[in-house]
């Protein structure tokens, strides 16, 4: 039997349990506890360190040379100072003083200079999903969990948000080009089969949604989508691709439900994909296949290239080395399309939908 290659997995699951780690890069404070419910915008953990530096020229302030300054310093690095606190003092006929110009943290004193950090740099980690705290990682973060419907995408603009899900258009029909019924209200997460023009995108944005999900997006709209202040996820890819009934049907079946978008860009190193999660708990949850798994006969796959690009189908056979129309050769898979037609493609050009 021919073994399938490892392929990327995009989860499109009506019911699964996901676990996501949210972790600070440095030790800080975890702001939630085991079992807490979280929303995407909630800050889970934060850390801070001194920043916004001010340099004080002590030797000039005291009117002495840098080498003489050390003896006049009355505070030590690490001290917290209040505005007006004395830092250095030079006794003499005319006593000269250097005081802290503002509240801050005394970082260092050397070469006749004091360095004061007057503010802080804060690093925050947000939940970026609706879920519960399953485990606290002391000082660093948490593991969140959610029993949900899950749809993973291929592109995100880096933001996260939540709202009630509104599905626009019929996935069985031709792609909807930004036409939005007026019934769609503010604060919703809107899912559309596609968006191909800027005016359509602007019409959507003017409705005040909390987030946007597109099956496909025109490439020229990427810069606009990237700059929007709401999360945007693309599920299939860019350009004129056929609608993906698997993903859109799943979303349509959850219309009206509270939905969270984590439009984080794909990062396989960290195990991140942009994803839509909708809390849901009926029935037996499906297993998580991870980000990659072996291709096998019977899997539902999305086709990433060729004449059938964007279509979904089922693997009916894995084939050894084949020569493709391009003249390149490699392991192939035979895919049965929904209409019954079969196509043969490089195994590398498939994503598993699970």
């Amino acid at each position: 039997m021919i073994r399938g290659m490892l392929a990327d997995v995009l989860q499109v699951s009506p019911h699964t349990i996901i676990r996501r780690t949210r972790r600070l890069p440095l030790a800080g404070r975890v702001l939630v506890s085991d079992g807490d419910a979280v929303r995407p915008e909630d800050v889970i953990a934060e850390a801070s360190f001194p920043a916004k530096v001010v340099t004080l020229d002590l030797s000039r302030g005291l009117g002495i040379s840098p080498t003489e300054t050390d003896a006049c310093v009355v505070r030590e690095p690490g001290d917290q100072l209040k505005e007006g606190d004395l830092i250095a003092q030079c006794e003499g006929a005319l006593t000269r003083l250097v005081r802290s110009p503002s509240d801050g943290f005394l970082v260092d004193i050397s070469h006749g200079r004091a360095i004061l950090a007057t503010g802080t740099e804060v690093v925050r980690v947000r939940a970026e999903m609706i879920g519960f705290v399953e485990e606290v990682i002391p000082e660093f973060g948490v593991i969140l969990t959610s029993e949900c419907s899950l749809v993973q995408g291929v592109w995100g603009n880096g933001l996260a948000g939540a709202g009630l899900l509104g599905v626009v258009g019929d996935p069985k029909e031709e792609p909807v080009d930004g036409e939005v019924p007026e019934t769609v209200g503010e604060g919703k997460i809107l899912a559309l089969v596609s968006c191909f023009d800027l005016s359509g995108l602007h019409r959507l944005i003017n409705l005040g949604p909390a987030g946007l999900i597109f099956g496909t997006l025109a490439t020229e709209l990427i810069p606009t989508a990237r700059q929007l202040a709401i999360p945007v996820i693309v599920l299939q890819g860019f350009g004129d691709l056929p609608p993906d009934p698997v993903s859109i049907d799943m979303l349509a079946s959850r219309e009206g439900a509270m939905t969270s978008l984590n439009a984080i860009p794909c990062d396989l190193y960290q195990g991140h994909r942009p994803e839509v999660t909708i809390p849901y708990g009926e029935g037996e949850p499906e297993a998580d296949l991870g980000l990659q798994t072996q291709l096998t006969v019977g899997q539902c796959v999305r086709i990433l290239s060729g004449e059938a690009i964007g279509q979904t189908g089922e693997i009916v056979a894995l084939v050894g080395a084949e020569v493709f129309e391009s003249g390149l050769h490699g392991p192939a898979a035979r895919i049965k399309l929904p209409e019954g037609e079969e196509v043969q493609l490089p195994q590398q050009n498939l994503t598993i939908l699970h």
Partner: protein
Amino acid sequence: MDLTRQAQTVLGLDIGRINTRASLFGIVDGKYRLLGGGIAPTTVDGDRHLGEGVGEALENLQINCGRKLLRPDGGLIMPVNPDGEGLDRIALTCSAGPPLKTVALGLTQGGSLAAARALIGSLPLALSGCIGLADLGDETLVIDRLLQLRPKVVVLTGGENAGAEQHVRTLIEITRTACMLLPDEIRPLILYAGNTFLREAVERRLEPWSPVQITANLQPAHGSFDLVPAQSILDRFILQIWEKEIPGLKELIHLAGGHCSTRDFAMNRMVRFLSRTSNGEHAVEKLRGVLAVDLGGGSTTLAVGLGGDAQTLTQPAWDFLPGEVQEQGLLPVHRWMSEQVELDLVADYLHNHALHPAIIPGIAMELILSQALSRFRLQNAVTNLAECYPSFSFDPDQGLDGDFEPVIASGAMLTQAPTAGQSMLMLLDGLQPRGVTTMVLDRYHILPLLGVIGETLPILPVQILETDAFQNLGTVIIPVSPAPEGEQILSMQVIKETGGDFSINVAQGTLRRLVLQVNEPAVLVLKPGPETDVGFGGPGIGGRLKVTGGVLGLVVDARGRPLPLPDEEEQRVALMQRWLWTLGG
């Protein structure tokens, strides 16, 4: 591991962003040979172990070379057992990890910061800030910027050895303050590669706060770069970071007994080695360089060796696609299409390909798009290398300035193209060399591995380079002349050892393929016209040249520099198809 013992069988593992390749080298008839290779997708994601992809590549290798390497439990048979199963040593190259965020601190943009940029560009490092003399007016702003950037590496350089110290001391103090403020976990590695007279100050001021490595000045004197010592340190550091971030890499490095490197530095090392041997054998008056290029799925690496030095650039494969798809941004790709295709389709294909870098062209149009992209990536890489290194010259309108022999190419789009002619044309169009060169395909992607193995087993790369593991596409003669199209610019005689000599006249604007069997030796007698430069020292200067036939025999590329690509799409496509047809389709 006993390095004094001659290894009989060496396993090379190359872990790329997309694919993991396993190559087995062993002794056949007293010489090292490539025994076989295996490939599998790299398993680098949140919860997978690199070893899974390596295991699959090894299983494929076992099948391909008919030799048992794995025990039933999946472990490696080491050393080789009496039945001849297993292997003695492992060498590893890796390019699977993410580039490390790096900040350069130096003095002048054209001096020390240029050297720092070249250093950072030669390794999987991402330059996120470049701070120089002009920024020192407000030191507090610089410190705050460092705190916001939170780099993993700071390259601190500047000042010629024994030169002025004041500004470099300021940089040291700035770095010190930033490190004092940053919490332990996120303090960067400080690589000091500046004025050597300040080493003691660097140790005293910085070591208490952050890990510090001190090495040779990147720019010991104005205009000269000395990057290798710093590259070597950073190479090790990058692997240390990747070990922590990529599950399984640590175990593989341990198995390799330290014979490991980032792919970029290994390629740099091999190109340095080749550029020494290349000139040693030929003893030409003008230094000949060696050029190696790898069009990987995740990055493009270009290494140019000259007289034992190397200039390397590595850049993400898709960094030209930030999503801002404007027509202008796509034209440099679109102009290389050998079919008429609308820009929108090019944009869609490239953006979807960037989402799934592992895909391969399945249909003819995708192949044309991918080969156009390859030409663009090659040209982009040589252009950017020229920006990093003043001594390397490339002008998209004039081509590559300098003698490079050979040009060694790897990356699936080049090595697995359906025909040798397609590989040759991508290289000629993308690099636009001049003079005489030989195009060689590193079909098994082993050049960087040879750089690692050669450190302790120098005979192995020497012997492997003589084998057909490297496919000679053919010697290319590229006469450059200002003559108008159609005018004769070169006469050429091909003298074969087996007889059947022939002569040809070469006209400006033509591309020709001359018959010479694979490995058949011949002598070329080149008689250029008075204004024609064939790389023998200037216009009108010709000479004799020993060559051996490649897969394409000999190729004469007299199309001119710059390549005369018509603006009108229909004409351009027709011309590209004619060139392709000339080299076998």
